[in-house]
């Protein structure tokens, strides 16, 4: 598999085409946060909304446009974190960031288990310019959670 094929794995292509969580919806949960992030190099944008159900991620939805890496990444993220506790979502985010910094090398089994489909993004680590694309949705998610928790009593 070439480095290019390693980056554009089938899982990623599938997620880019059939993205999970696409379409911003009203979330009927007590704590809702939203974040708008822009990739300044290409102008890609994402608006992502998170609803918290106690300390669990109750719902994630988003709208935006971008390259297949950014779209697939936010799709995988939405699928992964929905239903996770905040603590689990934090660990998932950390693992994904580690994967981006791993220069294309696989992570240990524990972190790979956390990431599920997101391990397919391993190839992105070989292309520093694309890490931003893959991280865009994750940055929005992280910020949206912070926004949601601002209203927490």
């Amino acid at each position, binding site marked *: 598999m070439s*480095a*290019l094929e390693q980056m*554009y794995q089938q899982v990623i*292509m599938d997620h880019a085409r059939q993205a999970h969580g696409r379409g911003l919806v009203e979330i009927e949960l007590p704590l809702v946060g939203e974040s708008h992030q822009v990739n300044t190099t*290409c*102008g*890609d944008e994402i608006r992502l909304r998170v609803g918290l159900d106690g300390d669990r991620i109750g719902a994630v939805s988003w709208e935006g446009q*971008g*390259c297949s890496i950014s779209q697939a990444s936010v799709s995988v993220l939405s699928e992964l974190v929905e239903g996770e506790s905040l603590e689990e979502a934090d660990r998932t985010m950390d693992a994904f960031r580690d994967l981006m910094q791993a220069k294309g090398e696989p992570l240990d089994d524990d972190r790979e288990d956390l990431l599920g489909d997101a391990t397919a993004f391993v190839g992105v680590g070989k292309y520093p310019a694309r890490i931003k694309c893959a991280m865009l949705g994750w940055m929005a998610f992280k910020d949206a959670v912070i926004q949601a928790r601002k209203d927490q009593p």
Partner: protein
Amino acid sequence: MLSSSLRDDFPLLTRTVRNGKPLVYLDSGATAQKPRAVIDAERDFYEHHNGAVGRGAHLLAEEASGLFEAARGDVATLVGAQHEEIVWAENATAALNLVASGIGNASAGIGGEEAARFRIGPGDEICVTEAEHHANLVPWQALATRTGATLRWIPVDDHGRLDLDDLDELVNERTAVLAFTHVSNLTGVISPVAALVARAKAVGALTVLDGCQSVPHLPVDVAALDVDFMAFSSHKMLGPTGIGALYGRKELLDALPPSVFGGGAVKVVTMETTSWLDAPMRFEAGSQPVAQAVGMGAAARYLMEIGMDRVEAHERELAALLRGGVADLPGMRLLGPEGDADARDVIAIAAVSVDGIHPHDVGQVLDDAGIAVRVGHHCAQPLHRRFGVTGSTRASAHVYTTPDDVRAFTEALATVPAFFGVKA
């Protein structure tokens, strides 16, 4: 077409890139590669002549000052300016900001009576175009906000040309400044400078030309163009980064207040007031990028040795090949004039929107084939918006670009839809 043996002057072009492939460099619109003459000029300066410019009495200071000013002269010659009409700036962005901020400072009362001619305020207008690089738009937005003047713009038509139908209304007696690009960094379209300058002159507006994409590729003569100011960068014309230049009519430069204040730019300083030196010194406060200036001078000489007429002819032939090659591909949209029929007034730039595929993804497949292009909005968001897209994949050429480079680009581009499972 220029001889491909000219490529031997550019050491970097011999390297290989991804998968050991030879480099096909089509990103010169973003930054050009450097000939040995430029690299050697910088090295020679540091190895033999480095000293404080305009500040010492020793031999090295003299030599450094001499080279610094000789470089200014070479850059002036390239664009048909007088020696003292060239001001060094960090880059073209800084050069454009120098003009906008200078007008803003004059409007705030800085520079006294000699600067009064630049004062603008509510009721005055600044006119730009929809085709501008952000560097020739944002400073004018800021100036409008700062002074209360109104920002207006000349629209672009579906083919990427400035729509001059309402020119007389858009540039009118209230217009203080008309700032526009000489060549679009997205479409490669050459602006109708004569018509724009004539209108600006008729209403007494200052003209500010963005020459970033013209000076490296076409013969440019500021006296013939009759513009008041022109900004251009070094690194796009085969020179080093970290330096650019501003051309300004001498009597205007001598009256425009500086926007960076400090030593080396002043005549008399008291505790209350300061009088400035004439141009270009008044704009060159603080230590200057001397080796870079020397490198930019070497780049100007290198281009003049080839001859800008020959550079332009090369550019036009490549433009036809490039645009014709892309126009033949299914599922691709060339932003700006389509096909080769319109190659008359464009330089060798082709910005392509590939149906259903994001520019970053397109660029990645090209990169895998060793082809370097620019992807994204190329600092021209409004013009992309005009074409209904957020970004594009842009190929741009220079003196070292060959028909083989163009062929490699169009061939690789043709494979992109299939790679992403999109029907072209």
